[in-house]
């Protein structure tokens, strides 16, 4: 199966990539996607995870055609 992976903001700059694709067998989790794409760094507790444009926990399974996103804490709304 094929998964689209996206990174945003400071995380995107730190990893040096905005987006990538991974191919894997069924059974992969969001956490597993991170491990395949983030260059060996463990998933930081502060990083938020989304699956198909919705917040999910990192233990959620992914499926063919899914879009997974990793990003830092949000700072929207105001300030």
């Amino acid at each position, binding site marked *: 199966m094929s998964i689209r992976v*996206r990174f*945003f903001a400071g995380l995107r700059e730190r990893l040096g990539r905005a987006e990538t694709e991974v191919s894997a067998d069924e059974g992969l989790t969001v956490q597993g996607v991170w491990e395949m794409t983030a260059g060996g760094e463990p998933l930081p507790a502060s990083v938020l995870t989304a699956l198909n444009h919705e917040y999910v926990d990192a233990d959620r399974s992914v499926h063919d055609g899914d879009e997974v996103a990793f*990003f830092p804490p949000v*700072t929207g709304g*105001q*300030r």
Partner: protein
Amino acid sequence: MRVQICEAPFDPWAALQAYQEERRDDLGSFGATAVFVGTMRDFNEGAEVECMTLEHYPGMTEKEVARIVEQANLRWQIIDTLVVHRIGDIYPTDPIVLAAVWSTHRGDALDSCRHIMEALKSRAPFWKKESRAGSGRWVERNTSGYKAS
């Protein structure tokens, strides 16, 4: 309900005027409108911020803001809602966010408007990078512009 992510500067009062005019027939017998506008300040922890850049996640951001508004609709009696959020390069005195709620009741309008603002801050995927004296840094907590409390 309208959720608008906009790249160009906007005038919140003109946006409210236009939206209310456009929705005149649908707004029905509303009696109360509560509005919050967040504007970029130019002081952040003493250092002058020259510009900030707001990044979003096209697709998810719009959906998450819509979810926030839909959840407010379940909890309060709301007739209509307008949320406008800037992205891109933002300069001091630029409006950043507008949240407006039309309701029958004053309490519903005020409470839901405040709730939407809180939820935008904690859940909507926007990220802010501040520039000062030519260098940029990502802000990972809500600290600047206007203060959260």
